[in-house]
């Protein structure tokens, strides 16, 4: 009985996944597609739960559905506000339909080849490797790993190189984001209702991030999930129209961005000096070292995701507003800053004055 009902549930999940993916890709309205993509992420998270992979489910829900969705929605909004540069539009307007269709076909064929290759590789791996060999190896060595959650043991101990390189990929991505120039301007205040929600949601999100980081040692959770939750707190603050969204300023931001890779490499080099292999933790210290690396990685991942949402380097504007506030007028936090508090002659500051005046009018 329960087997059949679970089968029905799995079937429904698969059907909704395929339908959502198709409708998200086939639609012409970008905003609608993004919302369908977020729904797809949530259903995918449920599918991961059914596959007994709660760690992946958490990451999918937080990053795939939540933050990626917010990122895409912000991009859609930006695109609708300022249309594509004239160069791209002119290229598009007199392109040949034949070339376009050929291109579409080429992309489809390439995607199909890629999907086929992946399916073949997966089938090959499932058939050739002895079943349960890897899980057995992990559980046999779990005691020496310093943590009791096998996923964390694999990510941070047995295959720590992979995670180090993943963090290096994130660092590269954030350098690319920095190369895009200054971030988009922030949003106007969303009004008292959303402010009220943000006021208690942000502390809860920060607390949840800490919990996910800590619990990762023995239950589903870890640096990626915690970092995504922490980043969500900043995204909520930005959507609420705050200029200060928890990102450190200036050199401190760069330190946080590099913290994940930096801590990993420092620990690895320290172990080398102590005569151990690179990232070969001595078992009694493993738990503590993993927690250190994961804490640094959480901050780095959160900063990376927030910077991706900002879409560029944080504007120095926020610093000036904050400095002006501290230097000139001791206004309590949360209240609008008076434009007189800003003493810079930079164009950014003039823009800030203007925006602050606007928000005050709205208040």
């Amino acid at each position, binding site marked *: 009985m329960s087997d059949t009902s679970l089968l029905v549930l799995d079937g429904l999940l698969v059907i909704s996944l395929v339908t959502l993916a198709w409708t998200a890709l086939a639609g012409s309205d970008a905003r609608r597609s993004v919302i369908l993509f977020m729904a797809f992420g949530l259903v995918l998270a449920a599918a991961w739960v059914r596959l007994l992979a709660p760690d992946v489910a958490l990451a999918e829900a937080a990053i795939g559905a939540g933050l990626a969705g917010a990122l895409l929605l912000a991009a859609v909004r930006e695109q609708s506000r300022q249309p594509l540069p004239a160069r791209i539009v002119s290229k598009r307007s007199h392109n040949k339909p034949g070339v376009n269709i050929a291109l579409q076909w080429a992309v489809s064929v390439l995607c199909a080849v890629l999907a086929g290759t992946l399916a073949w590789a997966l089938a090959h791996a499932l058939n050739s490797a002895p079943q349960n060999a890897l899980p057995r190896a992990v559980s046999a060595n779990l005691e020496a790993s310093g943590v009791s959650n096998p996923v964390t043991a694999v990510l941070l101990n047995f295959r720590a190189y992979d995670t180090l390189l993943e963090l290096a990929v994130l660092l590269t991505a954030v350098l690319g984001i920095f190369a895009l120039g200054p971030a988009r301007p922030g949003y106007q205040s969303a009004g008292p209702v959303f402010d*009220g*929600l943000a006021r208690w949601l942000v502390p809860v999100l920060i607390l949840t991030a800490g919990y996910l980081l800590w619990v990762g040692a023995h239950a589903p959770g870890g640096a990626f999930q915690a970092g995504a939750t922490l980043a969500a707190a900043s995204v909520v603050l930005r959507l609420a129209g705050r200029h200060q969204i928890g990102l450190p300023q200036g050199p401190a931001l760069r330190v946080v961005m590099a913290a994940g890779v930096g801590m990993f490499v420092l620990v690895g080099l320290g172990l080398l000096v102590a005569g151990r292999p690179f990232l070969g933790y001595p078992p009694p210290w493993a738990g503590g070292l993993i927690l250190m690396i994961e804490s640094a990685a959480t901050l780095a991942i959160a900063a990376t995701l927030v910077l991706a949402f900002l879409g560029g380097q944080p504007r120095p504007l926020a610093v000036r507003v904050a400095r002006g506030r501290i230097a000139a007028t001791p206004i309590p936090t949360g209240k609008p800053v008076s434009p007189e508090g800003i003493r810079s002659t930079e164009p950014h500051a003039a823009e800030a004055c203007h925006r602050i005046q606007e928000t005050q009018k709205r208040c």
Partner: protein
Amino acid sequence: MIDVLSALLVLAGVGFYLTGSIGLLRLPDLYSRLHALTKADNLGLGLLVAGLALHSQELLTVLKLLLIWLAVLAASAASAHLIARHARRQETTS
């Protein structure tokens, strides 16, 4: 006894979800759709949480379920307000 009560609560919750979804599909405009979604789904989730809480063995699980419900309540109330306000502003400007 507790099983029956729990099942009844979950079924009632599912009923509210169904009503909310039908309302979302059938009601004519955005405001009444929002009204159907937020009210019916929040109550439906509350009943589901109550039914599942009766079933759970630990107090911690009950508290987590309750936290989920409260978070969804706040989030859905705020987002319904934002959507409705946005729609209203667009109506008045155009």
